[in-house]
């Protein structure tokens, strides 16, 4: 079935001193209408680059991005400008992603102004206030500036801005990781409500597995530019297959004293995928790594139930 967004073999390489950085390497997924795809990984795994490449904030190196049946991978900027209202983004740090010299109402009106949605300023103001109501920002904040507000309210401005053009897809790049737990819960609820009301699709990029579990239908786990495990959310937490996903899951400190899980402590740290060799990129840190892992790169393979894993020994490790 072809969804709203089809990404096939997407690659984004950066030239860096000493070679090429494979920030996104051969990533494919499908996102359906009204669904949320969670993209999880540690910093430097290429998840943000993936989101920005899909929104054409960065030009892809190769691959295919099909949005609503239209290949948008290499279309020119003019054509993309016409599509942009349908694909919006919410940023991680709500303070640095808002122009400090614009008031709240100006921030929210900005996309409407750019696309000339309204001729009269009265209509525009009405719409801005509506948007503020939608995201739960009290109208009295219309003339305040971002630095006077708290993180949660700032993020609401970011959401209102993204909603202004009635998009179908919103890429959320770590939208709650800068927020306190109580505010985080408010924003996650808001995002879920908006999805129900408007049938939005989200691509939810985060490093927080508990958040992604809560909000997404499907999950992609990324490691050094590659997707190493991909399946339905329930499936992933019921049947974690890739050794990295397992380690990631076990490393999360659980706020409970009961059922303390066995910790898998990984050796070493993430490197960066500059001129990667043809091996499993996780092999140097993997507990199960064998010779084969260092000589060939495993492909994503379906192990049944639409569960895809990139590991040579997935069957052995999990006794499948």
């Amino acid at each position, binding site marked *: 079935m072809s969804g709203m967004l089809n990404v096939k073999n997407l690659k984004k390489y950066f030239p860096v001193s000493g070679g090429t950085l494979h920030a996104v390497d051969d990533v494919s997924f499908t996102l359906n209408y009204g669904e949320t795809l969670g993209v999880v990984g540690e910093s430097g795994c290429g998840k943000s680059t993936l989101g920005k490449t899909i929104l054409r904030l960065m030009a892809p190196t190769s691959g295919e991005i099909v949005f609503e049946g239209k290949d948008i991978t290499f279309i020119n900027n003019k054509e993309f400008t016409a599509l942009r209202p349908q694909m*919006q983004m919410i940023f991680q740090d709500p303070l640095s992603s808002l122009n*400090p010299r614009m008031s709240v109402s100006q921030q929210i009106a*900005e996309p409407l102004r750019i696309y000339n949605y309204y001729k009269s300023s009265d209509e525009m103001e009405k719409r801005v206030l509506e948007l503020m109501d939608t995201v739960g920002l009290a109208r009295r904040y219309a003339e305040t500036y971002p630095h006077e507000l708290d993180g949660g309210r700032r993020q609401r401005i970011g959401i209102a801005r993204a909603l202004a053009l009635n998009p179908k897809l919103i890429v959320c790049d770590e939208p709650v990781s800068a927020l306190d737990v109580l505010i985080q819960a408010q924003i996650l609820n808001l995002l879920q409500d908006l999805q129900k009301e408007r049938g939005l699709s989200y691509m939810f990029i985060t490093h927080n597995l508990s958040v992604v579990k809560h909000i997404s239908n499907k999950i992609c786990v990324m490691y050094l530019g590659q997707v190493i495990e991909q399946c339905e959310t329930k499936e992933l937490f019921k049947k974690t297959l890739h050794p990295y996903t397992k380690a990631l899951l076990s490393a999360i400190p659980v706020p409970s004293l009961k059922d303390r899980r066995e910790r898998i402590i990984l050796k070493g740290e993430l490197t960066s995928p500059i001129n990667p060799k043809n091996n499993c990129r996780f092999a140097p840190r993997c507990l199960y790594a064998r010779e084969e892992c260092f000589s060939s790169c495993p492909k994503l393979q379906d192990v049944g139930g639409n569960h895809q894993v990139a590991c040579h020994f997935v069957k052995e490790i999990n006794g499948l």
Partner: protein
Amino acid sequence: MAKLYTPAMAKIDKKKAKLKGRIQKTSPGREAWKRLRRNKLAIGGLVILGILVLIAIFANYIAPEGIDNQVLTRTLQTPSTQHLMGTDNFGRDIFSRVIYGTRISLPVGFICTFLAFAFGGVLGSIAAFYGGRADNLIMRFMDIFQSIPPLLMAIAIAASLGNGVLNLVLAISLSTTPGRSRVIRAAILTVKSNDYIESARAIGASSARQLLKYMLPNAMGPILTNFTFGVAAAILTVSSMSYIGLGITAPTPEWGSMLSSSKELMRVAPYTLYFPGLMIMITVLAINLFGDGLRDALDPRLK
């Protein structure tokens, strides 16, 4: 637990009561002004600048005599109640000439800097915004110009254009353009990496909009500061140029040319040097103090 009430809180409550009734709306501009007001040195600079502007405007009321009132019976008189700053070798009242000099030095300083920032601003923002080849081309070109000391270049330009206030302004602005373009390029490059530029792109803002509504306003802090320092430097350059005879010609009173014409009198009547020199010093000091304060005030992190 009972709520604590400290002396500091009482002091602030008193202040709050005083401010009651006034609308407390904060905008970045107002905040900056609030921070600036707290900086006594900067306010001092601002007050001096204000006085200088007033002097320039009302020069003909303040100055007791005209600019070229040569009275050969009173040459080289020392400062007295009659001639506050003494008289020069033509018997002209130095005080009057210094007062009228404000009319030249101040506007020339500001206009030169403004023009240099206008030229440099266009080049610098294009270089910073587009980067890559455009950046390389523009900046290497500027490098070539910068390899000549600005004063030498100004002299060369002024010499080829000939004397006159307009030519002088042009010479000084052009010679300082490369430096200004660097400042603006650097300022824009710093804000360019901010997330809000990316978020502007994500909502489809055009290049011009990104530059004018997002980058320039946020880069204004360092640019403004550099501007004030530029004004001070331009006044000094005008003075130096006049000193070597390429600036404003006699008898137009300009502080630099007054200095230059009294250089032979240094031994006989040193006070003919003191006062124009003092005026240059005061102006430059005032502008620098104000510029310093402005830089701090425009940085919201220094709140």
